[in-house]
């Protein structure tokens, strides 16, 4: 049995029993990190594997979240809803995000590189505009509360707490397990895709469009498919985010969230599924943990004194780490994890890209 398998097994066990010990802050942090992990896995398939940079990931996470709410909520005088069984609505939310990805996927099929980056920024602003305008569905600027999840009569919220080995299990504990389950499924399926036929085809598309098409790979279709797949994972993450925060607002799915996801996969090591998860945990936890232990940090001023307090410092640390990882740490957290798991294979050398683009009249 390899060292990495033992490590992964041990990690899973720790994660399974963690809700018995952790309090609300850590449970919520974990659930958010796991949701972010699912989203980051999707994004790394698009950006890291297929080489298409997207800043619209928050849009699809948002569609998943709002989709679940609209499908699962009953109509009220404040906002419209369909009142589906929540489990069905959760699948519906994921489906809507995937559908959104499918509708917008020709964009990824046609537009490349940094052009796609900018046009997807546009999608974020357009999405937020739409959320404001369809107040009867989205709750407008106020947002909407999230109905509890219920799977085949098993309540995953606070209304029917479980007692597991004498420990009361509320929504936070249950969602930790749900998040873990979704994350594991996302992880395994993404690994299969990356190592399987579509994944290596996308790696080839990223290397060279022409080379890929000479091998019979339909470049546009491949890129569009990657966009769709990223949206699907984002939708699942969106449902988890909604369940965890119990209330969603338009600002929650804006440009900042999209950049956070990008930062996660870069810190994690582009194209690496486990790196994406590690990056997600890191980016989700860093500012919140720093805020939580702010008063124990020396040399910082207190909030309101006009100096640099822990909250501002956490932004600085976040930026500094991002910059340093990009500058020096080739392979990101994925490489660090690789070292931890024992030597497996040498990393690919980091070549300077050849100037392959030429403007031909």
């Amino acid at each position, binding site marked *: 049995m390899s060292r990495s398998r033992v490590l992964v097994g041990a990690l899973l*066990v720790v994660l399974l029993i963690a809700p018995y010990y952790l309090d609300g802050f850590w449970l919520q942090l974990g659930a958010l990190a796991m949701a972010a992990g699912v989203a980051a896995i999707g994004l790394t398939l698009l950006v890291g594997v297929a080489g298409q940079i997207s800043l619209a990931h928050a849009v699809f996470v948002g569609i998943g979240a709002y989709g679940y709410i609209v499908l699962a909520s009953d109509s009220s005088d404040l906002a419209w809803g369909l009142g589906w069984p929540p489990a069905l609505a959760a699948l519906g939310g994921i489906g809507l995000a995937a559908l959104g990805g499918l509708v917008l996927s020709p964009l990824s099929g046609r537009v490349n590189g940094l052009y796609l980056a900018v046009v997807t920024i546009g999608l974020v602003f357009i999405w937020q505009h739409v959320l*404001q305008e369809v107040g009867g569905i989205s709750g407008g600027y106020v947002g909407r509360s999230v109905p509890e999840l219920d799977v085949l009569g098993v309540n995953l919220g606070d209304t029917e707490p479980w007692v597991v080995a*004498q420990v009361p299990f509320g929504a936070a504990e249950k969602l930790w397990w749900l998040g873990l389950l979704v994350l594991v499924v996302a992880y395994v399926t993404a690994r299969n895709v990356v190592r399987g036929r579509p994944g290596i085809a996308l790696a080839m598309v990223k290397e060279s469009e022409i080379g890929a098409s000479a091998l019979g790979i339909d470049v546009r279709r491949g890129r569009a498919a990657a966009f769709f797949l990223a949206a699907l994972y984002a939708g699942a993450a969106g449902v988890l985010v909604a369940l965890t925060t119990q209330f969603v607002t338009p600002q929650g799915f804006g440009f900042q969230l999209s950049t956070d996801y990008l930062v996660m996969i870069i810190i994690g090591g582009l194209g690496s599924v486990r790196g994406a998860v590690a990056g997600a945990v890191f980016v989700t936890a860093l500012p919140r943990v720093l805020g939580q232990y702010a008063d124990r940090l020396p040399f910082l001023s207190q909030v309101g004194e006009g100096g640099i307090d822990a909250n501002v410092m956490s932004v600085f640390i976040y930026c500094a780490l991002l910059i340093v990882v990009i500058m020096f740490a080739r392979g990101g957290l994925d490489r660090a994890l690789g070292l931890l798991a024992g030597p497996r294979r040498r990393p690919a050398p980091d070549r300077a890209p050849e100037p392959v683009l030429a403007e031909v009249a």
Partner: protein
Amino acid sequence: MKSFVKAVAPALALGLAVSACSSKADDSSGGGVGADGVKTGAGVTKDSITLAALVPLSGPIGGLGQDGVAGVKLYFDKVNADGGVCDRTIAIEARDNKYNSQETMTQYTGLSGDVAAVANLSPGTDAITLESRLKKDGLAVMAGSYDPLLLAVHQAFMPGTPYDVEAVNGISHLVDEGTLAKGDTIGVIAYPNGIGEAVTKGVDGAAEHFGLKVEHTKIDSTATDATAQVNTLKRAGAKVIVMGTAGGPTVSAASVAAASGYDVTILATNLLSQGDVQGAAKEAIVDHVLLTSNSAPFSSDAPAVQELLAAWEKQADGRPITAPVAAGYLMAGVLHKALQQACDDGDLTPQSITDSMAKVGKIETDGLGVDLDYSTPGAAPSLASFILKPDPAAEGGAVIVTGPEESDAAAAYAESQGYVK
């Protein structure tokens, strides 16, 4: 795969065995009675009471939260110096919500077990986001927004008059002084968010009351150039423009009006900074702008204002005082009253502090802001507003014209909206 299962299974069994002795098994956290006979709950120990501040602390509007928390601390420093509440000192735990309600929720979850009440100096609808959690935890939130939607959250307390009622007061003042007469047109420039929608609603209400016509325009909440909107309203012949925005568009609208020789009064809630009033647009602002406000300008000679200025001067190393400092100071004063009441009742649990807000009755702010009354849940704590005039020479950039006063129109409007119960 099989070897993997072999590795995991025993570890899992071991884990479950260990988990049986989780510390969470006997849930006895929070609650109890101190040696002094005071019942305590989350955030209260035998010598301290911890309050949360969930505010933006970094990024473009991070300054607002930083100054707001400075105001809250300034007030409680004074309280602590006088012996605190119930022989306990007041401590503030501030967290950055990045001006994002969902982030407020996350931060709240991290803190809710360790604080006795929450101050939220964020110009959004965070309290609505938190509503179900607040109810469960019994915590009170002092809200940093005057969005009337917050009135529906019984655990939330706004420290003044809702935006829409304030707009009605402003229009009523303009009618009283003869600027507006029946049949005139009022223009609105509004953000597509809380303040914008509330002001729009207030203007519509006032227009109905006074027989005015209304012309609506919108402005993007990231935009600061109101040229197109002002030109539209000029063509519509608006005699007054009411701003449902932050300070930036107000300054822009005044400048545009001045530049194009448009004789219009611009009515805005006081979100102008000293820099706005003393900057390039100062003449335009003085000529065109009239402000409504929930709090007194720093030029006021009310004792509470002077006290605040003196306290700030002593502590701030020459940093200028700003409106958020005063807002934080005022909120802290309200929270202090509730804490004192809860202490007198011998119960410092969160729910008791929340209930105390209603018990303390009318809260006099000694001229710092409008007087507040939380005794009826769901009702607006005040219907009065200050009317201010910008004045570059005055401290804080404005002087009081009248107020705080509650107009008849505001009373009627509030009645129609169910703000009076």
